[in-house]
């Protein structure tokens, strides 16, 4: 959470909002948000509605929920999906910021309606990242 707070302004400048979902109740959320001064939306999900809807993994032998991140573009399409394999498996802010920059680029907006084109661009980006 602190990691996201650090670059919150960069995320919003690129046209994104952060929504953090968790199984805790509203009071626990409220306390945590106040204590840590978090600027984004906190969504208590004690009924596990959204957690299940998005298939957040629970690994009993690792004592808990695995972190997951999904970036949904303005068209309602999931453009980034990461299901963590362990507690510390969380993408770097830079990775998500780079994706947001792409989503705002004129090239991307031109092809955004075409999933196949988009997928090509995405794979291209992935290859570039792997080269680094």
């Amino acid at each position: 959470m602190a990691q996201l707070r650090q670059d919150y302004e960069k995320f919003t400048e690129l046209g994104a909002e952060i929504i953090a979902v968790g199984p805790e109740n509203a009071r626990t959320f409220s306390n945590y948000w106040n204590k840590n001064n978090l600027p984004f939306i906190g969504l208590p999900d004690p009924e596990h509605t959204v957690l299940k809807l998005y298939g957040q993994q629970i690994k009993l032998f690792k004592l808990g929920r695995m972190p997951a991140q999904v970036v949904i573009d303005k068209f309602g399409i999931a453009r980034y999906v990461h299901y963590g394999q362990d507690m510390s498996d969380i993408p770097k802010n830079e990775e998500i910021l780079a994706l947001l920059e792409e989503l705002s680029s004129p090239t991307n907006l031109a092809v955004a309606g075409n999933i196949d084109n988009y997928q090509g661009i995405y794979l291209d980006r992935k290859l570039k990242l792997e080269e680094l």
Partner: protein
Amino acid sequence: MGKQVEIHSPAPSFELLDFNGAPVKLSDYRGEKHVILVFNRGFV
């Protein structure tokens, strides 16, 4: 256990109240903002 979301497919819609009691609806961001949905292990 729910099904995991596939990349480049429509994200499941949802509506919940935030901890202040304000409704948060995924579709409200349509055409407005990208949404970074974060699921963490919990606060404790």
